[in-house]
């Protein structure tokens, strides 16, 4: 299609073409570098953005078990100060449980990325109807647990519970906090559904 026009264009000399073209190109490039200069000139005095206060992270779970008879306290603690960061949680169990005893248990949840630490368990308690703790035994542990708190609908939350031991045994006890589980439920994790907010296993010995 362009052959006709091209012939026509030959009447305009290449010299003329390039004179005007070079000028506009030079102007264009001038603008480009001016722009680049402005960009780089105004960028180095930037101040860093503030660090985010991580409001939702649960770094620490503390389970306090108090022996009803002796008053002896045992603490189970999982602490993960970098949240989703690469460090694994540090798990500590302060002692062994005694046979044929009943313990009162309470659960504390903390966000220690902020100072002072946030008490997340208060939020969980306030929204009790949307949360529930589950206690799962594994590896030969033989204990029994019972909820001792209720939400606004009379269903368990699990921040408070009782734990009873009988004979010596050894295994793991897993604390799972589910968000928006089915309530009421059959007490099993699979029956409750919801999303896992916390899942921590502690090695437990009853002697």
């Amino acid at each position, binding site marked *: 299609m362009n052959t006709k026009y091209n012939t026509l264009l030959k009447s305009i000399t290449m010299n003329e073409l390039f004179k005007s073209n070079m000028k506009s190109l030079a102007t264009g490039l001038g603008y480009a570098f001016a722009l680049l200069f402005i960009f780089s000139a105004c960028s180095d005095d930037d101040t860093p953005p503030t660090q985010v206060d991580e409001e939702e992270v649960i770094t620490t779970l503390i389970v306090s078990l108090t022996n009803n008879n002796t008053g002896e306290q045992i603490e189970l603690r999982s602490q993960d100060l970098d949240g989703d960061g*690469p460090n694994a949680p540090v798990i500590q169990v302060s002692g062994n449980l005694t046979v044929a005893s009943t313990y009162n248990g309470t659960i504390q949840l903390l966000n220690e990325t902020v100072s002072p630490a946030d008490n997340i368990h208060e939020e969980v308690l306030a929204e009790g109807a949307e949360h529930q703790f589950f206690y799962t035994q594994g590896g030969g542990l033989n204990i029994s647990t019972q909820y001792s708190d209720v939400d606004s609908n009379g269903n368990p939350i699990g921040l408070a519970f009782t734990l009873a031991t009988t004979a010596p045994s050894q295994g793991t006890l897993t604390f799972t906090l589910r968000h928006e589980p089915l309530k009421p439920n059959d007490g099993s994790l699979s029956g409750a559904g919801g999303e896992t907010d916390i899942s*921590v296993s502690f090695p437990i010995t009853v002697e």
Partner: protein
Amino acid sequence: MQKLLWVSMLFIGTLSQAQTCELIFSGIIEDQHDDSLLSQALITLVDTDYYTYSNELGEFSIENLCPGNYTLEVAHAQCKTRTFSIKIKENTSKVLKLEHHYEKLNEILLKGNPQRINKSTVVDYLDQTRLAEKSDQSLGELVSSMAGLSSMSTGKAIIKPAIHGLYGSRITIVSGEVRLEDQQWGSEHAPNVDINLAHSIEVIKNASALQYSGDAIGGFIVLKPQRIPVKDTIFGKTRISGQTNGQGGSIHAGLVKSTESGWYGALNGTFKRYGDFNAPNYMLSNTGLASNTLATRIGLNKFNYGLEFSYNRVFNNLGILRAAHLGGAQDQYVALNSPEPLIINDFTYEIDRPMQEVTHQIASIKSFVKSATFGRIDFRYDYQFNNRLEFDIRRGSDQNKASLDLDLETHSIGLDWAPQITGLSYLKTGFSGRYFNNVSDPNTGVKRLIPDYKRYDLGVFALAGKPVGERFEAEFALRLDYMNIKAFKYYYTALWEERNYDALFPEFELQSLGTQILTRPVFSYLNPSASAGLNWSIDQKNQVLLNFALGARNPNPSELFSEGLHHSASRIEIGDLQFESEISKNTSLSFKHSGAKLGLSINPYLRFIDRFILLEPTGIQQTIRGNFQVWSYRQADVFLSGVDYSLRYAYNPELIFDQQFSLVKGYESGFDGTPLINMPPAQLINAITYKSDRLNNMEIRLESSYTWRQNEFPDTNFEAFIPETQTLELIDVSTPPGAYHLMNLEVGYPLLKLGNGLSKLRLRAENLLNTSYRNYLNSNRYYADEIGRNLLLSFTTSF
């Protein structure tokens, strides 16, 4: 340009004098709206025996005329017949303009020589007709019906277009000459464009269109706006659709006012609202969407200069399948082993968390000047503002707060210059500069997924086409891009050290803050890209295209800086500061046959990508929330090869058969060649279209689409401890779902003709057989089936 040259030619023409009754009257017939050349127009000198037809180039000439006054009548099948009075006293040339009937306007605007550059590579089109039929869809959904294209999706609403399996920052999306900058690095970030604003869509399936960018190693999707005629007119269109699945619909209205003097204005609006979609056997809870678009253009279109201001705003509120929100590996195990989604609620229009609210605004200024001496110069400036809010399921006082709140501002300028050079079919050169500022709002109370950064780009390019003999045209393109990115990032100290960044990048460290460290990563990249190609027109009907394209893409912010839990994918994602640019070398060969009955396109390609950045599982991380799979970005040399094939056979003008097949294979280089993750499975589409005047021009199209199972995939399964059963269980996140076959039916019925306008009623039945299936490229495939049968009724009217 053509017009201008023609005028110059007229001038030269009039210099020669002619004798009595030996005069020649010649000219060109052009379309008034877009200067396209009209062939087969009948030119008659009224009350004489003289008549002739215009040729392929719109040219005609009538010889042996006597001087005098004549009435000229020009008739064309698709245009209003027009008469002209002419006075001939010497050899005369004229450009005669015809106006198309309105209903043909769309077609003509499209065919108006849209592909003047990038001739050595296949450019696939979606024309106005196809767009209007499916304008309720998103861009990703729409283009996935084209050969070689697919979509990466998160449910029904969040759909990213993929070309040969490449998506996200590997694809450049251009809308109204503005390169879209809306955080396409995210796997669940759909492009924020409204296809109703496009008049046609072009897809280039390699990195060769260097006038737009050098880093589109997957290709380009170019949305072309409506070209506005220079004449006193007002026209518009309205489209209303409603559908059963999602129990919602869309409304679009557009109005254009233009004047003879060149001033014009256009206003467009789209509104979409859907509730929960449903799979054949259950509701897909929280998959509703709400979307609205407002777009306006105002401009002046003169013969040798033009100016346009435009503004558009796209807002999307997209629900994410409730059952896809999980808290770690044990939830994943339960969800994967459940045949149905774990959360199924009753239908609702309400869009709850998890969801996204994305607003994208573009303001642009475009101008051009053209002259016979320097050619055409285009200048563009655009400002884009993207705000992305992602709402997660949260606790306590944060419940209504977004978990992610990103603002990305982009300023871009571009200057293109296209001189006419003898011996070249085109030459285009230009530069572009861009500035990005990404700010993440710290008030979310969630560690930033993407750090605050500033980025500067500068690019220069040149493209040229040169005819070689009668049948060949060679193309060359070169581009150089410079990019500089400066970020502020808080890293977990443990990760900073684990990755050895403290030794590799000590200069980035600003301040140690206990478990976290504040860093200042600064990177620069200089990337060359190039393309060379050949277009061989064997004859009128057959064409062979060969193209080699070299593209380079910088790592995006997500690939560099990711570090932390990606909620919607239930995994921890880790980027790498040591990444270098990906280099893609693509060779594509195309054979095209365009006959009256048979149209055929076969397009094999081979693409080697050095340092391809891929995301894959590398381990398990323990957190207080349980175990999460860790996915790390990594670079590997890979190659992709495949073929796109499409065929159209018109048995007769009423009965047309279409066939389309796409296959792509991707492997890591080396002997054992691990398959690449998320490669689209092979797909075959067959369709029959019947259209007849006997049925009042009713059109019926039956489509069958078969998708094979993807049999080649990397094994990314892992084991997780399930406390309830005290066992380690396999979490199968890699096995692709099975093959599926879908049937679609469309019936279009022209209703009435009002003046120049046309109204059409269309019924579309998608997934006619209500098949339950899962799509390998949908990240919700782990949790739920795709949507079931959908009946859609649309009414379109143009005036």
